């Protein structure tokens, strides 16, 4: 288990390093940061001065090395647009994104797993089809449209919830529904497939033959094994959710990392963009790593492979 954990951790580090190199290179090549920083009225001399001041005149690998060594010490630079340290910006905005991500994940699991189990219990019946239709509809619905429809429903037709902001828990209700709904189909369908496979196995037949209650067979014996592939998918979905949703945070004016990503692209805030991408990458690596470890712990065959 230890060797497996170390291998996965090393792989995660390599992925983080590769992503950071690619992000840094692409961002610096896509646009001249000195021109952007200099502003509209800048002269050629101003731009050159900024290149020297910020070290943009140095070769790209040197710039990357300087950035990486500082980033490893927690210094992600200063936001060009907001004028404050990027780490401060991330610290301010991360709680909103984490709240949204964690609540959405719970929301998704809370509905998707029971629906998946229900569908598996009655395969190819109207219940299964309803669940399948729900899954396909949720997957096909664009977050942007769904968010606006919820606003129309709960803020204009039945004014029960505030439209936007992040001050109270009510502000998170609609965003959580939107983000959670998007994550539900994958979890639900995988739960259904896993359950169908497990329910057809011999040990389940044995458990039933022993006279165990259907609920015990289903929840204690079947679900525990069916959930293994679901955990891997939840790991990936958690990455999406905890990384912040640009669209949902923009629609509901949630001041999170997703909105910061959008703002930093609009204002070409290089330091912010680099930090946000790095953060997203680390979130994905961490959640996938956690899912891998959990899977290995639940199923020893994975470790041996």
């Amino acid at each position, binding site marked *: 288990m230890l060797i497996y954990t170390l291998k996965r951790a090393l792989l995660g580090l390599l992925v983080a390093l590769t992503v950071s190199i690619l992000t840094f290179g692409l961002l610096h090549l*896509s*646009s*001249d940061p000195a*021109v*952007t920083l200099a*502003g*509209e*009225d800048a*002269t*050629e001399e*101003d*731009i050159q001065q900024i290149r020297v001041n910020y070290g943009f005149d140095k070769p790209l690998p040197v710039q990357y090395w300087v950035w990486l060594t500082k980033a490893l010490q927690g210094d992600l630079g200063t*936001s060009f*647009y*907001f*004028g*404050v340290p990027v780490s401060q*910006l991330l610290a*301010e*905005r991360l709680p909103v994104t984490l709240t949204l991500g964690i609540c959405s994940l719970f929301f998704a699991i809370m509905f998707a797993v029971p629906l998946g189990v229900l569908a598996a219990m009655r395969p190819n019946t109207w219940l299964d089809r309803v669940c399948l239709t729900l899954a396909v509809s949720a997957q096909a619905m664009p977050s942007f449209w769904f968010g*606006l429809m919820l*606003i*129309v429903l709960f*803020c*204009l037709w039945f*004014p*029960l*919830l*505030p*439209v*936007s*902001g*992040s*001050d*109270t828990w*009510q502000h998170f209700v609609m965003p959580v529904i939107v983000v959670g709904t998007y994550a539900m189909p994958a979890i639900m369908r995988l739960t259904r497939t896993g359950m169908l496979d497990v329910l057809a196995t011999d040990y389940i037949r044995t458990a039933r033959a022993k006279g165990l209650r259907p609920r015990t067979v289903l929840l204690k014996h079947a679900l525990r094994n069916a959930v293994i592939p679901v955990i891997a998918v939840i790991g990936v979905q958690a990455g999406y959710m905890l990384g912040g949703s640009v669209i949902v945070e*923009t*629609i*509901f*004016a949630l*001041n999170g990392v997703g*909105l*910061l990503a*959008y*703002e930093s*692209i*609009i*204002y*070409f805030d290089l330091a912010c963009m680099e930090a946000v991408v790095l953060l997203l990458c680390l979130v994905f690596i961490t959640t996938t790593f956690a899912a891998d470890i959990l899977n290995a712990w639940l199923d020893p065959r994975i470790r041996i492979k």
Partner: protein
Amino acid sequence: MFKKLFKKKFVLSALVMSMAFVLSVQSAYAGKKNDTLTFASRGALGNVDKSFNTSRTGMIVQRLFTDGLLYTDPVTMEIKPALAASWKWINAKLLEFELRRGVKFHDGSEMTADDVVYTLRYVADPAVKTKGSYIKKIDRVEKLAPYKVRIHLKTPYPMMVNRLAGGVSIYKKGSYEKNGPLSQNLNPNGTGPYRLIKILDGKGFIFERFEDYYKESPKGQPAIRKIVVRIIKEINTQVAEVLSGGVDWIYQVPSDIADSLTSNPRVTVKTAPSMRIKFLRMDAAGRTGDDSPFKKLKVRQAVNHAVNREAIVKQLVKGSSKVIHSACKPIQFGCTEDVKRYEYSPEKARQLLKAAGYPDGFETKLYSFLDRPILETIMNDLAMVGIKVTLDYSTWPSLVSALGKDKVPLTYHGWGSSSLPDVDAILPFFFKLNAQDLSRDPEVNGLIKAGGSSSDPDIRLKNYNRALKLIAERAYWLPLFSDTMNYIHSNDLEFVSPQDGLPRLFLTKWKK
């Protein structure tokens, strides 16, 4: 039995309590009832000091909590004394200001000449990277008396009065010492009608009426107790907020949305002019290569004939938008529409292209970051005469970067002139013989410089008019239209629509 009943009761009461909680949701920023005006803005604001930001939100916010020496009336566009009681030109390079007495900063201290001298010296310092180079035209600022200052300019610059009326705030002496450009974010202290009491980390700002605001201010006395600015990027969310009463006032509303809400009884829709114009610029100087088709006058003229501007204005921009023929907003000083005009004629465009050696048209790239539907219409119009355009749709920084690398043959652009009613706020920027200048015409540049450096209005007019006529004759631009500004606000609100597209929210009040 008891267990079941308990369960049922618990579930029921939990449901009732949650419903009551949800129903008790009140916007933290209510309207007339709480004497709080909430407005939504799409742009985040990094720095509240206008000398260090160029956003429209910044311009609105700055006018709430700070005052300048002068002030532009939003209806008459007349320049009025604000912190200055009076001003006069001593000569073409020297301005003298008599300051108002008894003006208080928000910290309670009195504003004197020391504060004016300190602020202007700081922002005029070449080492301080302010937004907008006009302020660097100040050579030095001297204090003549406790309430009298003089501003010495490096070269004659008559527009300095408009600039001072348009965005140079006065802060307390020593303000910038500790935190430099970010000082007002950390310790806001202006002389404006509202005090900036809280910055909500990227979410907005809260202002409170300044009770000691000087009575003689041309801005009048603030009527509403509190103003809250909320940053909401998505326009549809803004509209939902204003319809549900969470926000009282929004601006920069697209015309199609404004049109759809004109008959809605919940809100008031207003359309007013904006100083912003939109235009196409062509690589007449051949910066993208010697074979650039836009080097040929006939090609540029063909582009001018090819685009149906009337249709764009009528079908897409709407509101108070109008077709323009010159490289400026017609109400700006120095602007003339008496220039060579190019009527919409695809046939003429095709003939010109043929005469220029492009009988089958050519392919080119259009760079922009704005107004996608308008861009697609323009591209379609150009395709009709044989100019096949591919779109490079990105952000403003990417466009600036591409311009710096001489990669831009054609660009669609907008310019708001910082809401200043003078062509000096637009022409020098685009005809400066630098990376932004796609025509690089020394004659046009010389005329604009001459117009900008004379204090004689006749000389200014003559030079600017000549420059604009040349720009039109040589078809460096395709001027498209003047933009419109749509506002939607609560029916409880009295809002003065500005002529320059820059809302003065300190003038708003609740209807009685």
